[in-house]
């Protein structure tokens, strides 16, 4: 690198007029702190995960440690039913969660974009769960779902459901219960992003459409939605990646249970590495998760033609 730069230097001097007031090294100096931090704490760990994925590495079973080739991957795909279960649950979790969040988020943004009395307060209130963390969300919903003193008790008193059941420890209700808890803080995320973009739509467009006699539905379909497209695509992707990767909520709300039915792939990986110390296998699973994420994101961006005409 250094040599190449030195060789390239001599014929360069008058190349860039615009930046003549500044030394050419400035942009590199400016990105250096960020680049170094990311190299050390993201790139290097990623590489070491790839490296460990090809190793048997388990501090509690040192006699097996060493080069494994693709053993870990073969084991995951052919011998480990838990891997497939967690993969399927991850997909289900991300798809249901993100599409519901998008739907409700869009509706919420359209509502609080209107002028109405108490709008500022209304916005602040409906957006407030966005700031609440995974662990805190879990704490709140554990209180709500508590079988003895939670909302179930009061619903049972009103004749809905039965007293004494805990929605978090029943395999038939735990998925919906977790989804609702996560919706509670996820919908405001979408609403905020979409509202921000709604406000950048020029009012003239609507006035012109109004003059032309376009109905509100047509205005929504032909003005609002196309304008929101990029924001929706980007926030959906970010949220999907985030929902897939995030372990805070499920780790603390259900712990992956009951009977493992709410264990996502990342949660399974965390258990494999932290509890079972099987770092080699966990690294292989991490690699698979990373590839899946990257692949899905690329397909998604391609299918949705992100950025389309503008750039």
């Amino acid at each position, binding site marked *: 690198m250094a040599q190449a730069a030195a060789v390239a230097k001599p014929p360069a001097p008058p190349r860039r007029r615009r930046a003549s007031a500044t030394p050419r090294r400035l942009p590199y100096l400016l990105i250096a702190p*960020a680049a170094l931090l990311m190299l050390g704490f993201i790139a290097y760990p990623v590489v070491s995960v790839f490296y460990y994925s090809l190793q048997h590495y388990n501090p509690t079973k040192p006699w097996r440690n060493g080069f494994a080739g693709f053993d870990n991957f073969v084991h995951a795909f052919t011998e480990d039913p838990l891997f497939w279960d967690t993969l399927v649950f991850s997909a289900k979790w991300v798809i249901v969660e993100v599409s519901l969040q998008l739907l409700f988020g869009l509706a919420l943004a359209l509502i609080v974009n209107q002028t109405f009395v108490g709008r500022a307060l209304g916005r602040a209130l409906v957006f407030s769960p966005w700031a609440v963390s995974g662990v805190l969300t879990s704490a*709140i919903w554990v209180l709500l779902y508590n079988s003895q003193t939670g909302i179930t008790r009061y619903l049972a008193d009103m004749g809905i459901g039965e007293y004494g059941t805990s929605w978090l420890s029943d395999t038939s209700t735990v998925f919906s219960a977790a989804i609702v808890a996560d919706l509670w803080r996820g919908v405001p995320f979408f609403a905020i992003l979409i509202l921000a*973009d709604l406000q950048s739509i020029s009012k003239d467009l609507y006035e012109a459409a109004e003059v032309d006699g376009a109905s509100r539905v047509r205005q929504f379909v032909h003005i609002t939605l196309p304008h929101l497209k990029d924001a929706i695509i980007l926030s959906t992707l970010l949220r999907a990646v985030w929902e897939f990767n995030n372990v805070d909520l499920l780790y603390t709300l259900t712990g992956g249970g009951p009977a493992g039915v709410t264990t996502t792939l990342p949660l399974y990986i965390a258990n494999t590495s932290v509890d079972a110390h099987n770092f080699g296998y966990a690294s292989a699973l991490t690699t698979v998760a990373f590839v899946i994420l990257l692949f899905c994101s690329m397909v998604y961006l391609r299918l949705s033609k992100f950025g389309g005409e503008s750039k």
Partner: protein
Amino acid sequence: MITKDAERTVPVTSAPAAEEPPQRPGKVHRAWDEVPRWHIYLPLSIYLVFTLVPFYWILLFALRKPGSTSLVPWPVTFEHFEKVWNERSFGTYFQNSVLVGVVTLLMTTLVALAGGYALARFDFKIKRGFMLALLCSQFVPGALLLVPLFQIFAELQMINSLGSVILAETVFQLPLSIILISNFIKNVPYSLEEAAWVDGCNRFTAFRVVVLPLLRPGLIAVGSFAFVHSWNHFLFALMFLSNQEKQTIPVGLNTLLSADSVDLGALAAGGIIAAVPVVIVFAFIQKWLITGFSAGAVKG
């Protein structure tokens, strides 16, 4: 409200479009103004109930006497708070979390400001590569890098020091922060800076005097993001800090959650202590947040 109803009766088609009197600025476009009130208030109220009942529930458990099943927290008691703050060391956790949050905020904003400026204002050889790296890093799950990160911090002798958590939080906040800030800077006309150079400012002064003030909404959005994230995030602290005196609030909450017999009052009080700073930050920045996003996140 009354004036709006009066306006609405004016037939739109009666005047040619060009001659129409200008709308009051700041008013939302007409078409959506005609949404019936109940179309706004009914769904909003339903959503408000969904949003607020959980908050009410946690307040209820935190404020009412242990063992009470009343739906109104009366008489109010603060014994859960005292217990959590003193016996469950939430006082210490709180200090640690504030330290982590504030230092992460400062580091993220500074480093991202430098990087964002470089991306917004310069063309350089590795620019595309750098931007690609920023984008790709969004797919790297922080939780899955726990093991290598743990090894790195062990090498650096930073296990059990808040520095490890601060560094990890900062690094994982950086990519998005840089992208956001560079978009904010792109929205500031370059000619403003050039004019300042002509007036004799150097690049740094020009940036400080001309660009920085215009970046305020963006910086507030990015900084508060970093603060809220590091305040809430829990896995890094759980993994890198084994010493209880070094722990942060979310880990304290998790301890309460995973206890054999969950003390619901303590859990609720701890949850409120965890929420208060974030809610304050959030209430304060909300105005800037929306404008910040619409300027930065979306037009990228």
